[in-house]
């Protein structure tokens, strides 16, 4: 991850028309953006098209962009707007759900699989995942933005285009469900306590 000042530098270099900085921004954020895109739609084509359009717009309007210290926030919000707008307007995207096909192609190397290794943690993750699957798509989206992509509640509200209270509610209600999956059992308790004291 880049530091705050590195982020600002990168953004400013890009705004001056530096193509390498532009590519760097893409490389830093494209994976996360695609990953987030899946939380809004399962249509891979739509996600990729929106990502493409987003970066074309970004390059073409670089001179009119303002300073920002959170490129990532800007990109996430723009991607969501793009996907939503296409979904509303374009019957083509509504009709085709290419996602399933794409998954079947399979056998591609996956980027985002950093599992932690100890058995206890694996178990914990499995339980958590089971809980996560029960959440509504909007809840999943909010949870992802918060924990996977490290946005603050305020930012999540703005990315998702909802007010702050609703964002907090989404997150809170989701966490309530998930909490059941990370309950500390009696045996663990003793061990943890011993560590702690």
């Amino acid at each position, binding site marked *: 991850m880049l530091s705050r000042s590195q982020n600002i530098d990168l953004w400013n270099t890009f705004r001056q028309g530096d193509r390498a900085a532009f590519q760097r921004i893409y490389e830093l954020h494209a994976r996360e953006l695609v990953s987030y895109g899946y939380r809004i739609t399962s249509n891979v084509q739509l996600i990729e098209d929106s990502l493409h359009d987003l970066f074309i717009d970004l390059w073409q309007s670089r001179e009119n962009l303002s300073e920002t210290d959170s490129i990532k926030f800007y990109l996430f919000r723009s991607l969501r707007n793009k996907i939503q707008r296409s979904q509303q307007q374009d019957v083509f995207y509504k009709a085709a759900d290419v996602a399933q096909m794409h998954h079947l192609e399979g056998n591609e190397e996956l980027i*985002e699989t950093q599992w932690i290794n100890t058995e206890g943690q694996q178990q914990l993750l499995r339980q958590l995942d089971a809980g996560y699957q029960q959440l509504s798509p909007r809840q999943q989206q909010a949870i992802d933005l918060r924990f996977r992509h490290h946005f603050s509640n305020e930012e999540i509200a703005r990315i998702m285009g909802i007010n702050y209270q609703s964002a907090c509610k989404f997150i809170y209600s989701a966490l309530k469900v998930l909490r059941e999956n990370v309950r500390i059992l009696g045996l663990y308790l003793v061990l943890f306590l011993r560590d702690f004291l």
Partner: protein
Amino acid sequence: MNYYQYNAEDFAADDDFKEWVSQPTPRSEAFWRGFLADYPERYYQVEEGRRLVEGLRQLPGPPVSERQISGVWTRIEGTLSTTERQAPSRWLIRRQRWQLAASVALLLALGWLVRSYLPEAPSPLAASQPATQQQWIEATNEADQTMPLQLPDGSRIDLGRNSRLKYPKEFTGSLREVYLTGDAFFDIEKNPQKPFMVYTNGLITKVLGTSFHVSAPLYAPSVTVSVRSGRVSVYADKATPSQDPEAAGVVLTPNQRAVFQRKEAIITKGVVDKPIFLIPESEKRLFAFEEAPAQEVFAALEKAYGLEVVFDEEVLKKCSLTVNLSEEDLYQKLEVICKVLGAQYKFIDGQVIIYSRGC
């Protein structure tokens, strides 16, 4: 902050708490350690909150493949290189169209005035009229057959299926420029003063007058240019050329082709899949040899296909052969010749290399 009343989900929903778990700083560390020392009964809630934050960060996300990421990037670059070339015309269309039209009208009027006052003098104003509003035509072939097109300069193009060609209504300026997505065969009218340029997926094909085929499917990782006649210069379309990009490209002659790998921006030269005869049909029969020295056979090949044949004259000095190869294509001819000579052949860099130990 009433943290002492918090339960696990409250903690996980708190920005400061999340910050501490995912990126602890000495300050946050001190704060939360202090909190736990003050309220040890909140230990479970804190621990569960921590598990939520850490666990949710590490949940396996949706599958994102490298290919997908680099694929979209290639598309972005493709779009940008196309739109940037057309930037002037877009700029005109969008904004100052009226202003420009007005100033052009004014210029024309001025030019006409100057002209009418000085009937004999060539008007400098009229001569330096800028190439205004380039009008583009976009031909898209969605049919099953190839689509024949004729460009304003008389050049003929067969546009392949699912392909798109963008060209100006008139070739003003010093270059004839077109943009291709997909496949097309070009038969270009000779005009050394106005080179003809084909832009495709990051590759430029430049010719003076010749015929060649370009294959550049939208999402394909490579572009292939195959030459039928004339000379063709092929080079990468770099956004900021530090040197003459053409110098880093290759020159192709008939029956040669260049394959451009978009990702690595590498151009390799080779031989087309189906080399054709470059000499008149009537000379085909010259491919019957009787006790002919190897050298003579290779010279005939060179002449017929326009490809250089490289071999060791010293080694093949004593070799001669009797064959009739009038009907075979280049590959079959080489097979037969090499079999007779006990030699092998390879295509390297658009040339035919013969390996032999002599006869």
